[in-house]
């Protein structure tokens, strides 16, 4: 059978029309899909939200998981998965869960999820039957679903957890602990789906399954995440975008390039020079976000050979550091001198100690006098500035110059992160090291670390002081108010006297976004490393 040329052409034309319509349709569909691209400097260190202790991990978890409470720009607690809460006595709390909150698999979030999550964080064995059935130690280890979360201590001592009904959780503490509710606002206190965890369909060490705005569509380790809208998210009409593509771009310059060419719409930078780097591009806006976090210096008061065993030497170094110079030289004025009780809380607790109150010349005189009294007019110090953040090396250089003025000869050691963590927190083989502390959303949470018996992670370098530990316990149990503020002043005085962990300057995050492709919502101040807590409200202009 032969087909004429005109017939062939007609068929070809028809096919083209159908193809064209199909293509047009898919184009419209593609346009209906709104997406944003987020550039991050590092991937998660673990999938386990209750364990990981790095900001890179926390930021990612916040896209998927939710906490019972959250905090606003004034560090005031706001509803999260709990729509309301009340303290029914100094040691008891009632949390009322949202009835419309669901996991991304569609199952409602219930009280058992909250209780199970808190139990997991506080170190309960989540597979007691499996462990009991195991015969050997090896089998018991394998069967165990117990974790050790650093966050458990921030809850205080939980005496009892109970559910009145599916949406009401009652918590009883062994003694008053004011930071209990703020501790629930940190991402490490995320609520995970316990039913799925217990029946084995969800493994929090391998997967992310939450009730937050997004769920994981695809994951390419150390390369990208494709987060898609959680269809069961309780905020109707949110998130505003269907897809959030997360690109892991470790190199800062490459991330700037990605912002410029539109591959990413927003990213966070620690480098204060970022404003200068993107100044020529009108489409890029830089938003500094003040946090309750601050840079700090750990000093080894316990190593046998360390000159810092003598408190006067530690105090001398603390006095010699010029925090104003750090803020202006390293951070181009974007940061401010900071205190053990972070300045972002707006409390004057630590401002009256000599380290902050005395003029620079008087501080230097006092530092020299302290070194002379200690019989060490010249002290050799190795200062570790890990390669985890290039800022550490810059801070170290300024501190080196400051300290030289009173007789400290500081040698800066740049070490890889794992080695730094091992030397400082495991072995305690160091003189001084730079890092930063998360300030969270209540002053008692961060200053609690000055009690090594509570913190545990600093027992190898931090002197234990019973009076300070007692004072910190008092603060933890005291309700907000003038009396607590007075206690904080006393605690600050003791912390300054011990000079074992030195608060340096505030840690400011710089968020860069493309103004032509997105609308972003950020708080000027962030308390719980929750920079992108309004991600559900981010709008794509594409």
């Amino acid at each position, binding site marked *: 059978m032969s087909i004429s040329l005109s017939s062939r052409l007609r068929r070809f034309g028809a096919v083209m029309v159908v193809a064209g319509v199909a293509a047009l349709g898919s184009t419209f569909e593609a346009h209906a899909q709104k997406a944003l691209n987020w550039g991050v400097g590092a*991937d*998660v*260190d*673990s*999938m386990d939200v209750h*364990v*990981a*202790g*790095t900001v890179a991990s926390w930021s990612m978890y916040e896209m998927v998981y939710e906490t019972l409470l959250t905090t606003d720009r004034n560090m005031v607690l706001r509803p999260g998965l709990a729509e309301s809460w009340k303290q029914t006595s100094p040691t008891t709390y009632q949390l009322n869960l949202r009835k419309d909150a669901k996991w991304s698999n569609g199952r409602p979030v219930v009280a058992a999820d909250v209780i199970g999550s808190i139990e997991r964080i506080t170190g309960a064995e989540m597979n007691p039957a499996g462990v009991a059935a195991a015969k050997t130690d090896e089998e018991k*280890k394998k069967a*165990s679903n*117990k*974790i*050790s*979360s*650093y966050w458990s201590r921030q809850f205080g001592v939980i005496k009892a957890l109970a559910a009145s009904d599916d949406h009401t959780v009652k918590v009883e503490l062994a003694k008053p602990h004011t930071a209990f509710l703020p501790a629930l606002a940190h991402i490490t206190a995320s609520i995970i789906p316990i039913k799925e965890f217990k029946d084995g369909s969800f*493994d929090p*060490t*391998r997967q992310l399954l939450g009730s937050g705005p997004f769920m994981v569509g695809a*994951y*390419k*380790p*150390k*390369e990208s995440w494709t987060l898609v809208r959680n269809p069961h998210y309780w905020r109707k009409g949110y998130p505003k975008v269907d897809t959030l593509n997360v*690109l*892991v*771009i*470790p*190199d800062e*310059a*490459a991330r*700037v*390039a*990605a912002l*410029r*060419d539109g*591959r990413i719409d927003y990213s966070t930078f620690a480098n204060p020079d970022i404003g200068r780097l993107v100044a020529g591009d009108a489409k890029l806006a830089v938003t500094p976000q003040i946090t309750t976090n601050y840079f700090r210096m750990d000093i080894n008061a316990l190593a046998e050979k360390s000159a810092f065993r003598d408190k006067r030497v530690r105090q001398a170094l603390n006095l010699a550091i010029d925090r104003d110079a750090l803020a202006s030289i390293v951070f181009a004025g974007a940061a401010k001198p900071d205190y053990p009780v972070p300045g972002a809380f707006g409390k004057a607790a630590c401002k009256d100690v000599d380290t902050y109150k005395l003029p620079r010349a008087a501080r230097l005189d006092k530092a020299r006098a302290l070194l002379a009294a200690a019989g060490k007019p010249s002290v050799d110090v190795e200062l570790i500035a890990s390669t985890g953040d290039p800022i550490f090396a810059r801070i170290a250089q300024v501190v080196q110059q400051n300290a030289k003025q009173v007789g400290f000869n500081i040698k800066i050691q740049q070490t*890889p*992160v*794992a*080695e*730094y*963590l*091992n*030397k*400082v*927190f*495991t072995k305690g083989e160091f003189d001084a090291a730079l*890092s930063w502390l998360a300030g969270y959303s209540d002053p008692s949470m961060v200053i609690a670390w000055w009690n090594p018996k509570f913190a*545990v*992670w600093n027992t190898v370098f931090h002197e234990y002081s019973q009076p300070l530990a007692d004072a910190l316990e008092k603060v933890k149990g005291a309700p907000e108010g003038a009396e607590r503020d007075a206690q904080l002043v006393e605690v600050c005085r003791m912390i300054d006297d011990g000079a074992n962990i030195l608060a340096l300057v505030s840690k400011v995050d710089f968020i860069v976004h493309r103004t032509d492709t997105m609308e972003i919502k950020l708080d000027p101040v962030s308390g719980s490393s929750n920079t992108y807590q309004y991600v559900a409200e981010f709008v794509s202009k594409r």
Partner: protein
Amino acid sequence: MRLIVFLVPRLVIAAITMFGVALLVFVALRLLPGGYAEVLLGPFATPEARAIIGAKYGLDQPIAVQFVKWLGALLQGDFGVSMVNRRPVIEEFVRRAPVTAELATLTLALALAIGLPLGVSSALAASHGRRGRLGRLVGALGASVPEFVLGSALIFVFSSWSLGLKVGGFVPLAQDPWANLRSVVLPTASLSVFGIALILRTTRDAVLRVLTEGHILAAVARGETPWRIVRHHVLRNAAIPVVTVTATYFGFLLGGAVIAEILFSIPGVGYYIYSSLEGRDYAVVQAGVLLASFAFVSLNMLADVAYALIDPRIGATRRRP
């Protein structure tokens, strides 16, 4: 039979080499200060938390026991799972290997395409002043410009003026060949500069050495044309050192070009291994180094075969009792 005699000793040596590499890497990783628990927990690594993680991932067992278990699993094709996401690491290497292979192949092709003719031409013109000096200059410059400097400069220039190329944003070849090409031009360029210099200098030296040999003088005396002398007498005799450095360079590229991958966000094996080393994700590093050493050993074997093909005297000498 000749093939078996040729291959078997090499395969045995390759297996011993790879076992040695595996053992060395396994032990070295565990001797490094700082472990996975410390990286995972950050500054909150209490002894109890470290112990729980150690028990969970089998890191609390003696190194010898860990090695035997790992080796046993490896012999059954199990490369282990990543501590970070609990996924089999081999899946990730299979996904990333084509990217690295493409980048390595393009880089090598560019290095050969430029380095070989420049090397030959530079050697032939060694006594002619400018062209000879130009070759030496290109070789010295290429070998001395660090990859990160060139890469950073390319990023700066092309992020300001894209000129049709992409700074990062790798697109797989299968997804869009044109976009793929646009995304690999810059990393290939930054990587290949060293390769160009290496091949140029090696070729130049090899050709210069051959040019001084007697059979070249004889060919000239016979009145053969310069092109014929180069094609028939010089290139083949100068090829062996070039093959050696080419195989070594290709092996190096297949092991992952960490800096180029970081700068240009290329999802290859280099950055994956490097960042896993920083994060003490042992299974990834062990598998990565083993696979890289496999590539290296295989290429060396291929180079051995190539020697015999280029110069039959090599095979003949080695066959002699």
